[in-house]
Structure formats: structure tokens, C-alpha cells
């Protein structure tokens, strides 16, 4: 069992389906994020990205299928699974009335890390996202890009090995967007963090990244980002073709 866990992928989503009433939000979705890899989850609005994130973070129980994080099944060992997971949600989730440090300490305590132990870690992370000087400022005084960087720092406070980001750059200017991409890419490169990055912005994806395309709750393409398109077709063009084709339920495994 432990041997299997050593080799288990960072995230294994196996045949997950989820319904809201009569509407199927996810149908038979399988995704594997290998350790130390950056995986892009591409999908238009309403494709089911946020639902998938809610299932992975156990906000919803998956109705069918199985989710494991580093071999810890979300159904059987939710605590161990969640402990290794860091999340940046699409919506801003910082407490705007509290300071940056108070927000980060609150998060540390949610993971059982006491104030003294967290202090050093928080200082390091704030340095990493370039916002050490804003430590004692109220979150409401930060710009959109700055709060996003704080949210990334927050998601790392408990030292997760898998980071989930749900369209983290939405609504940010080009510079802030580039900053955030650079921070996360550095984490993958230097610390071996595994990342699942949901987006529909193609500049954020490199040809060597793993990618899956989610459309109407189904995976319609998967593979290396550079090879998803057919000969001479850009990823963006391939994506447009995949999400406009009316083949509801068409699957194409790589």
C-alpha cells in the first residue's frame, strides 16, 4: 500500500461524474497530474472547471468516481488528502478587514500550524511573492494582483505538494498576470510542486505543459499542450475547434 502511495500521482481524478439536479456538470472525468508537473485545465466558462475544483477540494462529494491526492483517497482519508492540497479559488477569499499577516495566520491555524511556527514560514512566503512590506496592511488596501499574490502565499502556508488554481489571473492586468504565472512556474521548477491550473488564457500555457480540455463537463482532449492541435494548428485554434464542435460527448484520448 505504501509502495503504491510512493508512486501515486499528485492528483488522480478517476471517472468522476457530478450532477446538479438533472444537469450533468461533470461526466466521467479522469485527470492525472503527475508529481512535479504543471497541468493546464482548459475550458470555456461553464465547462465544469469550478465544479471539478469543488469536487477535488471536497466542497462537494463526488457522486461517482474517485479522487486521490498523493494516493490518499478523498473519501477514505480526506484529512490526509486535504493536508497536501493548496487551493487558490477563483473568487477572492481573503478577509478584507484583516491584515495580510492575520489572514495568513488564520490559514496556518486551519492547518494546525501555531503562530510561532507559522511566523517564519509566512515571512518567507511573503518575500517570495514580493509583498513583505505589506505584511501589516489591511487586505482592502491591496490591488487585485497583490491580493492574488497573497492568496498564492496563503495556499502555500501549510506546505502543500499539490496546488490548485482556478483561473487565478482573471481580471488582472498583464503585468500582474505575468507575475503570478512566473511565481507558480518557479515553484514547479524549483520545489517540485505539482500544479493544476484552470484557465482559458493561452499565453499562460507552455507547449511542454500537460493539458486537458474540458467542455460541457467532459474531457474532449488531453496530451502535451503543444501536441493537442493537429498539424500546424495552434493550441488556441485547436481549443476553439474542440469547444465549438457539436459532438456532445466526443472523447479523444492521447
Amino acid at each position: 500500500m505504501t509502495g503504491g502511495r510512493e508512486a501515486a500521482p499528485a492528483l488522480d481524478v478517476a471517472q468522476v461524474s457530478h450532477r446538479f439536479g438533472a444537469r450533468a456538470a461533470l461526466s466521467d472525468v479522469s485527470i492525472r497530474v503527475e508529481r512535479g508537473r504543471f497541468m493546464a485545465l482548459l475550458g470555456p466558462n461553464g465547462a465544469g472547471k469550478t465544479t471539478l475544483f469543488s469536487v477535488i477540494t471536497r466542497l462537494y462529494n463526488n457522486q461517482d468516481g474517485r479522487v486521490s491526492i498523493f494516493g490518499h483517497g478523498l473519501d477514505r482519508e480526506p484529512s490526509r488528502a486535504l493536508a497536501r492540497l493548496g487551493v487558490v479559488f477563483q473568487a477572492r477569499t481573503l478577509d478584507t478587514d484583516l491584515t495580510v499577516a492575520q489572514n495568513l495566520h488564520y490559514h496556518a491555524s486551519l492547518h494546525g500550524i501555531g503562530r510561532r511556527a507559522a511566523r517564519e514560514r509566512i515571512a518567507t512566503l511573503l518575500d517570495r511573492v514580493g509583498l513583505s512590506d505589506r505584511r501589516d496592511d489591511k487586505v482592502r488596501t491591496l490591488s487585485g494582483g497583490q491580493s492574488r499574490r497573497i492568496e498564492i502565499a496563503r495556499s502555500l502556508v501549510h506546505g502543500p505538494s499539490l496546488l490548485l488554481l482556478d483561473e487565478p489571473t482573471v481580471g488582472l492586468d498583464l503585468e500582474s498576470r505575468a507575475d503570478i504565472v512566473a511565481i507558480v512556474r518557479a515553484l514547479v521548477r524549483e520545489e517540485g510542486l505539482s500544479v493544476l491550473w484552470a484557465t482559458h488564457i493561452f499565453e499562460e500555457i507552455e507547449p511542454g505543459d500537460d493539458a486537458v480540455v474540458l467542455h460541457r463537463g467532459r474531457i474532449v482532449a488531453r496530451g502535451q499542450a503543444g501536441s493537442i492541435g493537429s498539424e500546424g494548428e495552434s493550441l488556441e485554434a485547436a481549443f476553439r475547434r474542440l469547444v465549438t464542435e457539436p459532438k456532445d460527448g466526443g472523447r479523444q484520448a492521447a
Partner: protein
Amino acid sequence: MSIQTRTAVTAAPTRMPGVSHHGRLDAVGYLICLGGIVRRELLRFFNQKERFFSALVRPLVWLFIFAAGFRNTLGVSIEPPYQTYVLYEVYVVPGLAVMIQLFNGMQSSLSMVYDREVGSMKVLLTSPYPRWTLLLAKLIAGVTVSVVQAYAFLAIAWFWETDIPPIGYLAALPAFVASGLMLGAIGLLLSSMVRQLENFASVMNFVIFPMFFASSALYPLWRIRESSETLYWICECNPFTHAVQLVRFALYGQFEPVACAVVVGTTIAFFTLAVIAYDPGRGIMARRGGPAGDNS
């Protein structure tokens, strides 16, 4: 502020001194988690000064104006725990203190709905601790705030000759904790049922006011019985009545077993229902929309 300079000071999480790879999942870790949730609640409470004052002003208005006005109309005869004929102001103090907790319980519930709308509930629920322990921590955090408020009110009411023996203030602490837990648990369940913040006004109309007025907070129940037997039984069945009685007796150094049993029983029942409602597979989380109303 290049990435290179940033990474120079970064160590891998596993190498951080004093920090285990992913916090502690044992009892100590849980206590840290509980402490963090209570701390956040207190920080938010003291940040919102208006909230603190309005929570105090409401019962003080009742005490200084309403009770003074009714002083001569509503005489309260001798009944336990009072040993003599008491002034109306003296009678209403315990009820007003518990009213603070009632409003606070609903306020916590309101902030749960707000947290769900803005998404910070998601952050709480991705904590690795079992969900029921997170809800319990939320409940304890709310109770801490409500007990602070209740004592702030008692401190001001003290100048108004409320005739509470000094030992009563101490004896009432467990009673305030119990009533705070009960009202918080009711609020917690309500927060799982209210879909949107806008619907909260109806909670005021259909929960707070009926609970407060159909209770022994403002008038002894024998008075109500004189006018309506049915109403009397409604008040008897109202858990708020028992919370008020538990506190009232405790303030005079006495223990009311029936009130205590009702308060504890109601707390357990409502907390259990709230845990079911917040379960990821059932209740609100499973319904369309989920915790933040997103459905993409």
C-alpha cells in the same frame, strides 16, 4: 523584484525548520485550528466597532427606556429565583443579556451566509480537520463573542441597581456558554437553510422576534397564562425561554435542571442537523449552486 531574488530566500516546505510538512492533524493541531477560528472571530468583532456598540445599545435601550416606562405598569410578584418583590428592570436584565446572545447567534449565522457568498467558507472547509469539528469551532468562536457582549451589558446594567449578587456573575458564566451554544447552533442551522443574504430579513421576522417575545425574557410566564393558556404553552416550548431561565437562576446562584436539559438537548439537536446540512454529500453543499452559488 525579480523571481530570482525572491527565490533566493525560499526554502522547500519540507526543509522549513519548525514546520512539519503539513501541519498537525492531531488534537494539538485541532486546538490550534480552534484558536485560529476564535481569534479571527474576535478580530472581526473588534474591527466592527458599530457592531459592538449596536449589540450593547439594543438591550440598554430596552433597559433604560422600555423597562423604566413599564416599571409601574408591570409589577413582578415574588417567584423563584427572586426572594422578594422585584422591580421590572431587575426582572428583564437576564432576558436582555440572553437577547444579546440571540442576536449574536443570528449575526454569526449571517456572517456564515456572507462567508459562503464571498467564498471564505471554502477556505475554512478545505481545512483538513473533519467538517463537524470546523463547525464546532465556528460555534465556539461565536459563543466567545456573545459571552463577551453579555458581560459588557451586565457591567453597564450593574450601575442600574440590578441586584445581582457578585457570585451570580461567576455562576452565570456556564449558563451563558450553554445558552450561547444553543442560540449559535440554531443560527448555524439557519445559515445552512438561508440561500442568500437578502433572505436574512425574514429570519429577523420569523425567528428572532417570535423567539424573543414568546418567552419569559420580558414577562413572567404566569402573566401570559392569565391571558392565554395556548400562548403560555408556546412560551414553555420555546427553547429561548429555557435559555433565559437558566441564566436568570444562575445569576442568583441557583441551578434550574429543566432549563439546563432543554438547552443542552436543543443544542445537540440543532448542531447535529447543522452538521448534516453542511455535509459535502448531503444538505446545502450537494444542492445545485453549492457553497458559493457557483455552478460553472
